């Protein structure tokens, strides 16, 4: 029987049995709407308050009143960015974001730019760290919000949030921190960072999908972007997803107790996986910081040269290994991940990209199986690849370990693509 190894915890995690248990009654017996004034409504209001307290505790927020529930991380960042932009229009129409934010931030910003806002995208180093001097320089008296994520969703880089918080505080600009890739795995402290807003989603840490959390400091001004009833203090209209919120709260509570163990477990596996892949596969590169304090312990982002990412992903899947990829062939837009572009990764390496994200359920045996399988997959795909051939004949050179022979992959690709395309 094929072993099944789930290495895509960045996309989803299984709901803990304890979490599922607490959710169940809210589908059937306690089905009330939190807006109702009768017993059914009041009971679920109570459950909502408990969940808010659990969420607040996870990120060291002062009060449950600072917790807003949305449908997921994308809605949270839309609310944070657009909500702050619209609420502070009179102060100015300038936004600052890091160049490697999640698409929900980048595309919210693009939407606002079409309506007259301007935005400065602050660059990152090749390891994905925000250029703090550029951040400082990007601030203007018209800047109404700065968005910097805690951990990058693709390459796992941990940003220096205290530094970022200091720079924003000095400029008097509220800071929104997307913690989708870190909450439940790394400590998040809204007060320590001086964050005005923070978002995270329980489905990343063994809670259910369908609920997102936005922390908003009482002094930060945002307006609602969904209009309807007066739910969530008037900041987010729409019936609350009570079972998911209750389950998410439980997942947050459990995460607090497991944070250290999670970090230690995944850090061991991360090193084992990268060291194994690095020793078994030639011309392979780790994108983002080396495993250690600057990289979240759950993430590995690798580029394997001379082969493309979707083929690797499909063959991994057929071996029971679930992974993701930032290659253009995997995206519906046929574009490489903008994060890989922002760190200046060669297009050839972005094409051969695979993202593996670890979780509590992975074991050392799983990792050894993945290393073995992946080495076989690379051999199989390289045998099919004209680029591997051409590298071996000296027609093209390696980006990862240049031999000095042949032209670059990109130059070669441009030449053969010079023919009339479609």
């Amino acid at each position, binding site marked *: 029987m094929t072993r099944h190894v789930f290495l895509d915890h960045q996309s989803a995690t299984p709901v803990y049995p304890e979490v599922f248990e607490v959710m169940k009654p809210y589908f059937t017996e306690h089905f009330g709407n939190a807006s109702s004034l009768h017993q059914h409504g009041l009971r679920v209001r109570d459950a909502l308050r408990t969940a808010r307290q659990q969420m607040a505790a996870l990120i060291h927020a002062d009060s449950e009143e600072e917790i807003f529930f949305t449908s997921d991380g994308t809605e949270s960042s839309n609310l944070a960015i657009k909500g702050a932009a619209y609420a502070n229009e009179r102060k100015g129409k300038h936004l600052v974001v890091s160049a490697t934010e999640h698409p929900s931030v980048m595309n919210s910003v693009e939407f606002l730019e079409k309506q007259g806002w301007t935005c400065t995208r602050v660059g990152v180093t090749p390891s994905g760290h925000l250029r703090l001097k550029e951040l400082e320089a990007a601030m203007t008296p018209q800047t109404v919000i700065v968005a910097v994520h805690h951990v990058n969703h693709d390459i796992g880089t941990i940003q220096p949030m205290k530094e970022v918080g200091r720079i924003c505080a000095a400029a008097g600009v509220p800071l929104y921190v997307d913690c989708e890739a870190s909450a439940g795995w790394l400590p998040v402290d809204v007060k320590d960072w001086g964050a005005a807003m923070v978002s995270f989603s329980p489905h990343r840490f063994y809670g259910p999908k369908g609920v997102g959390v936005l922390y908003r400091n009482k002094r930060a001004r945002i307006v609602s972007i969904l209009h309807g009833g007066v739910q969530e203090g008037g900041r987010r209209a729409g019936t609350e997803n009570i079972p998911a919120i209750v389950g998410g709260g439980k997942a947050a509570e459990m995460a607090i107790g497991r944070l250290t163990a999670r970090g230690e477990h995944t850090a061991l596996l991360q090193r084992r996986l990268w060291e194994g892949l690095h020793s078994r596969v030639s011309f392979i590169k780790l994108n983002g910081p080396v495993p250690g304090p600057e990289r979240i312990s759950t993430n590995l982002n690798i580029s394997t040269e*001379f082969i493309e990412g979707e083929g690797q992903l499909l063959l991994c899947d057929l071996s029971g290994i679930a992974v993701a990829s930032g290659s253009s062939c995997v995206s519906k837009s046929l574009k490489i991940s903008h994060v890989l572009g922002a760190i200046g990764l060669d297009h050839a390496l972005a094409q051969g990209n695979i993202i593996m994200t670890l979780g509590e359920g992975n074991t050392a045996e799983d990792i050894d199986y993945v290393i073995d399988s992946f080495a076989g997959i690379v051999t199989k795909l390289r045998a*099919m690849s*004209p*680029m591997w051939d051409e590298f071996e004949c000296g027609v093209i050179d390696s980006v990862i370990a240049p031999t000095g022979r042949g032209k670059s992959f990109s130059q070669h690709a441009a030449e053969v693509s010079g023919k009339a395309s479609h």
Partner: protein
Amino acid sequence: MSETYTLYNPTVMDHFMNPRNMGDLKDADGVGEVGAAACGDIMKISLRIKDGRIEDARFKTFGCGSAIASSSMATELIKGRTIAEALTFSNEEVVHALGGLPPVKIHCSVLAEEALKAALEDYVKRHPESASPVIVAGQSLTA
């Protein structure tokens, strides 16, 4: 998991997992290598041609599952055809034989057609005398 779900249909998956005609041809009579500007995939097709007919075809592909399947299928389809027939080869034939491709992946089949035509062009360059059947077929190789 009791069931296996696949991204592509069974024919495409079969050609991806068990590609036909993968490799190079020693002493090929025509070789074409093309790249897709859109996504960065690269495809190479080698042909052995005797008496105006494609005797054998091989491919190598740097690209996604559907690009590998498209080149596998294209080389299967093209074997045994005359140059004139091969010049009328269209990507739609690949898509049809594969039982369809997702809309965003149709360009993979176009790449297979382009690689084949580049290989034929290379052959004609090496064998100018073979250009006549080309004209008969009413196709221009340089267009």
